[in-house]
């Protein structure tokens, strides 16, 4: 079954099997991307009771599905933002295509495993970290391991915003601040305007506003995030010679990615929903609407400018801003601090796992055996995380429990 590298026969078949692994692992990443980010759109609506938890995740899932199908813009060059494994037109670098493209496939596979491992870990501890950053981090790690530091695109060529610095690091630092400012201003003004109106009356009105704004964020998320996985899978298809068109993404790839992200969203990352909805601030409907509208506006404006920001960073900044902007409200800064730490560690941590996986794969010959082993490591890790999560399950039934009633509230975000 195992064909050693350099063997005269069957390198193409080997690459095809690795390709299947890449596709499956990429779809798994898309799935984790979905449940990791349900919170971005729906946490505030669930926390204020604007939507029942189950209804919220169903609505968000459907809108993500619709959004993913709408993203026909070619996202083939997604990896170009951070690493140099593709040419400008999206075709893979020719030097990586020997042996049926398995060199490139191994880099992509190892990067995806790094991204998923980090997504699962942050989900386990209920931290909203950026899935795009996890993907970029994983790819950076596996590329550095495979091609050396020169494989990383740090700054681009200066003609447009590009590279790790321009597309990842600076946006990560600035976008939460930006979102926080806008949500603070919005929330503060909203509360000035509604003084004198009975609370029941405002809550009822603003719940509708919340549903509308949260739906917009869900739709925008579908269009933004599903694209990335589509791009990665198509890159693998081109590398292994199963697809040649760099202008288009095969329909089945689009459909599978759309379904993966939507079903992930529908599963609902309840742990993260809880942290974002209950952990940071005690959120009210006016705050929820201000936060979600701020997020929606920033995400849409920035992607319109071709400068996509992380939905997670924007939403967290907005929720914080909603806490700062409401007179008399308090923010649990300890929880916010943990999130900030998660943001800074996402790239290096995912990169470390990505690099480690590449080394393991390479040590085992860089071919089918290596790819199989790192996929199995991922499977084992996933099972371990699932088992661990059973110890303190968070689900639709307890997602809104009082935060401070939880034992060691600032350490474990989940109700036991």
């Amino acid at each position, binding site marked *: 079954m195992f064909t050693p590298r350099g063997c005269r026969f069957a390198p193409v078949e080997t690459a095809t099997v690795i390709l299947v692994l890449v596709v499956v692992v990429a779809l798994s990443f898309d799935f984790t991307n979905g449940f990791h980010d349900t919170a971005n759109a729906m946490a505030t609506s669930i926390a204020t009771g604007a939507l029942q938890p189950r209804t919220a995740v169903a609505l968000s899932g459907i809108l993500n599905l619709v959004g993913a199908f709408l*993203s026909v813009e070619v996202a083939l060059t997604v990896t170009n933002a951070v690493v140099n494994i593709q040419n400008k037109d999206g075709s893979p670098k020719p030097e990586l295509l020997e042996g049926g493209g398995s060199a490139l496939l191994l880099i992509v596979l190892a990067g995806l495993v790094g991204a998923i491992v980090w997504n699962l870990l942050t989900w386990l501890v209920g931290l909203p970290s950026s899935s795009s950053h996890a993907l970029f981090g994983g790819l950076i790690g596996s590329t550095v391991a495979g091609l050396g530091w020169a494989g990383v695109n740090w700054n681009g060529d200066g003609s447009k*915003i590009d590279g790790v610095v321009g597309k990842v690091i600076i946006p990560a630092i600035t976008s939460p601040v930006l979102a926080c*400012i806008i949500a603070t201003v919005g929330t503060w003004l909203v509360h000035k305007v*509604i003084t*004198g*109106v009975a609370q029941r009356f405002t809550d009822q*009105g603003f719940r509708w506003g919340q549903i509308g704004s949260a739906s917009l964020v869900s739709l925008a998320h579908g269009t933004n995030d599903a694209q990335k996985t589509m791009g990665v899978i198509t890159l693998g298809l081109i590398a292994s010679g199963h697809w040649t068109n760099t202008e288009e993404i095969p329909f089945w790839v689009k459909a599978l990615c759309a379904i993966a992200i939507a079903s992930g969203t529908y599963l609902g990352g309840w742990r993260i929903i809880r942290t974002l909805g209950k952990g940071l601030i005690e959120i009210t409907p006016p705050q929820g609407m*201000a936060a979600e509208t*701020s997020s929606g506006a920033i995400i849409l404006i920035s992607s319109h400018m071709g400068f996509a920001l992380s939905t997670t960073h924007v939403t967290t900044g907005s929720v914080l801003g909603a806490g700062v902007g409401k007179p008399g409200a308090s923010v649990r800064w300890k929880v916010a601090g943990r999130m900030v730490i998660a943001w800074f560690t996402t790239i290096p941590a995912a990169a470390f796992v990505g690099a480690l996986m590449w080394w393991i794969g390479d040590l085992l010959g860089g071919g089918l055996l290596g790819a199989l082993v790192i996929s199995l490591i991922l499977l084992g890790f996933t099972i371990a995380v699932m088992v661990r999560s059973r110890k303190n399950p968070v689900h639709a039934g307890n997602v809104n429990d009082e935060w401070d009633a939880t034992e060691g509230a600032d350490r474990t975000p989940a109700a036991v």
Partner: protein
Amino acid sequence: MTQNLILVGEALWKILAVGLLLGAGIPVLFSVGVRAMAFGAGGAAETSHEPGHPIGKVLAAVCFVVCLAVVAMGITWIVASGFGKTLSFEDIYPTIVDK
């Protein structure tokens, strides 16, 4: 590196400006609508328990319609960009044009 920082800085200012206009503006307009609605309903809707003023309901409707229109425009824009189109404001009112 420097060039990259300058480009990002320019983009961020624009996002902040438009973000404040839409991201903070819409909730504020919505809250004006809620306030006007309470003014229109009167009684238990307001802490002052004054009788209702019908004009409030009209004002509220205007606010909500504008909010809805902006959100509808946002959705149209997402959908349009999915088909390789975009919204143009050259004629002041939005029209769908090719990218």
